[in-house]
């Protein structure tokens, strides 16, 4: 897989035999790309999933082409990074363009297509989302549209792969025809759109074309469209959005817990671990090595207890639920409904989508902030994610830890998390210079995710998690096993005792949490499970691990997306805040508990 950041690698412009995949945002380009190249691009039902471009091999009539998934833009006026890249790509001698039109919003996509056509590159258009258009009662006269635009147009339903073979065949024809009559040299100077007259002209021509080719059949809005509209009204929209959030949370917590206690815990405790116990006891080895392998903190015990039984059930459930929210178009509606609250905090509703992505994993969420229009917004959202948003692995571990004691404790930690969220927003808004642009968001139609695309995305996400998280998790497990089973931990615990025991009120051996938390967030919670903590200790431990420094992967992505200074500043600030807040909570709550 090669997903390339926008700024880097100029060589991509020199690639021969390029075909560009273009279109407005959120029209399903990623689905085309995945199918034609067998490289999976993540698609979602909101604007800006492809913030970097991707390239893959696309074979047409036996010839290999490089298909480039260009980020979706509304225009080609070189005023944003994504648009600049799109223009550069068009000026780099591509063989052809596969343009994806949105049949449910033909006007907007024809306007962009008109701009693209100015560049004199052969274009084949896919008329995607034609099922949604039919649902909404738009009858599109495709032959007339082809005539108006002067290019081939093929109706498609990308998520069902309808029309894909025709696209490849048509591209083949266009490319063969091009061999015979070379096209005029591309003109890269058309960047006047979106400014005054030029933009208006494109829009006007687009409107005329739509007026001729689309017939509006009066149709009662479908149940889905009615629900989509309802979700968008202040009432009952907000209530529905909260209900959906609650149901999603309930599904992740409930089903995750069930999966853990019914299937995975018995599998680990009665199946896998005893098997390794037997295996290692039959082998002759030094006691210390045996302990490192299968002792209380042994590698072959905790790697299964922590990774398989603790983290995996919640990761699976979260991806299942979140992919549905993403593909359905519910998230942008939430962005609209809660924009007022986000605005009071100094950001705008659109950043809610990135923050929610962060409840899965901070890394894609921080990459997703590239779509933010100002530097300040990017930094604010990133700070919020690093301080107050636990990733799903950590959430899973926290649920296991806290709900054993009481669901009220879980609620208390959740409320503390919200408090940190608000404080982070307020403080970062004060500290970071610059401004945040108000919300401007296109609201997509509500869709029922198509099964094949949905599950493919689910499996890709889970696989991605395994590939990316397995390594760091195993490193954490090995470190835990070594320091706990060799006696190193006693030394470290003694050293950190004033902090861990004196200030935070945790058992001295909880020092292991602070060490493992550097590598992975859930690893700061996992050791606490076996420590027989009091309610207050659990609460303090949970809060510290929630705010504590982001994991190594997040540090790396912060350094890459911003710079080492930002990564270091966030790391220091989160660590200091976590320890300060944890200690304060321990002492104040402890004080009141002693009074009672």
């Amino acid at each position: 897989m090669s997903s390339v950041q926008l700024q880097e690698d100029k060589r991509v412009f020199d690639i021969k035999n390029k075909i560009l995949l273009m279109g407005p945002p959120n029209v399903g380009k990623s689905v085309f790309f995945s199918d034609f190249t067998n490289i999976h691009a993540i698609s979602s039902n909101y604007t800006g999933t492809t913030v970097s471009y991707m390239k893959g091999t696309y074979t047409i009539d036996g010839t290999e082409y490089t298909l480039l998934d260009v980020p979706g833009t509304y225009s080609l006026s070189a005023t944003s990074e994504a648009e600049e890249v799109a223009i550069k790509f068009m000026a780099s001698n591509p063989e052809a363009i596969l343009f994806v039109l949105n049949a449910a919003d033909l006007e907007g996509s024809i306007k962009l297509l008109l701009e693209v056509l100015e560049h004199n590159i052969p274009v084949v258009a896919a008329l995607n989302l034609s099922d949604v258009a039919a649902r909404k009662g738009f009858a599109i006269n495709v032959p007339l549209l082809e005539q108006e635009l002067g290019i081939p147009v093929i109706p498609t339903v990308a998520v069902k792969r309808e029309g894909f073979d025709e696209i490849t065949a048509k591209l083949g024809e266009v490319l063969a025809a091009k061999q015979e009559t070379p096209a005029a040299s591309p003109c890269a100077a058309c960047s006047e759109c979106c400014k005054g007259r030029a933009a208006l002209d494109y829009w006007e021509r687009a409107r005329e074309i739509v007026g001729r080719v689309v017939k509006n059949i009066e149709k009662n809005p479908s149940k889905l469209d009615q629900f989509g509209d309802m979700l968008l009204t202040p009432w009952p929209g907000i209530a529905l959005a909260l209900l959906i959030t609650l149901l999603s949370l309930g599904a992740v917590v409930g089903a995750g817990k069930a999966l853990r206690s019914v299937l995975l815990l018995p599998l680990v405790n009665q199946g896998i671990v005893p098997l390794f116990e037997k295996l290692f006891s039959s082998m002759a080895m030094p006691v210390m090595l045996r302990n490192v392998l299968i002792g209380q903190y042994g590698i072959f015990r905790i790697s299964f207890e922590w990774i398989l039984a603790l983290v995996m059930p919640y990761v699976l459930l979260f991806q299942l639920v979140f992919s549905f929210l993403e593909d359905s178009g519910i998230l942008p509606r939430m962005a609209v409904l809660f924009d007022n609250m986000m605005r009071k905090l100094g950001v705008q509703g659109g950043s809610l989508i990135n923050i929610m992505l962060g409840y899965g994993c901070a890394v894609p969420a921080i990459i997703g902030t590239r779509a933010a229009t100002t530097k300040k917004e990017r930094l604010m959202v990133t700070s919020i994610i690093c301080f107050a948003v636990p990733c799903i692995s950590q959430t899973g571990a926290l649920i296991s830890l806290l709900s054993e004691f009481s669901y009220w404790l879980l609620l208390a930690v959740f409320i503390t998390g919200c408090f940190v969220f608000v404080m982070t927003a307020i403080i970062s808004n004060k500290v970071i210079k610059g401004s945040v642009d108000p919300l401007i968001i296109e609201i997509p139609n509500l869709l029922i995710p198509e099964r094949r695309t949905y599950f493919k995305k689910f499996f890709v996400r889970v696989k991605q998690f395994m590939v990316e998280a397995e390594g760091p998790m195993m490193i954490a497990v090995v470190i835990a096993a070594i320091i706990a089973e060799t006696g190193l931990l006693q030394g470290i615990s003694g050293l950190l005792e004033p902090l861990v025991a004196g200030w935070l009120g945790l058992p001295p051996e909880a020092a292991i949490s602070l060490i493992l938390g550097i590598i992975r967030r859930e690893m700061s919670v996992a050791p606490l499970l076996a420590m027989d903590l009091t309610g207050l200790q659990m609460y303090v431990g949970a809060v510290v691990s929630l705010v504590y420094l982001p994991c190594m992967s997040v540090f790396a992505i912060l350094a890459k997306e911003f710079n080492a200074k930002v990564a270091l500043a966030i790391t220091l600030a989160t660590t200091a805040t976590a320890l300060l807040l944890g200690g304060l909570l321990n002492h104040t709550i402890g004080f009141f508990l002693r009074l009672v």
Partner: protein
Amino acid sequence: MNNNLYQAEIGKNYTIFAIPDNHLLSCIGILEGATIKAEHRYGIGGPVSISLSTRKIAIGKDIAEKIYVKEVN
């Protein structure tokens, strides 16, 4: 009657006659002369949502207040 978009009456159609210089607005099709329908206004500083031909767009309060509209009769 001339008004800014934020004060537009919900459910009525308007023609835009002045917009601030904002790239995203013009790219999404919110241009002088465009006809829109005000759909919802979200309280406590929330956005205004409008429909513009087949699109639904939400626009934050701070920028909606700078978009001037004329009611279509």
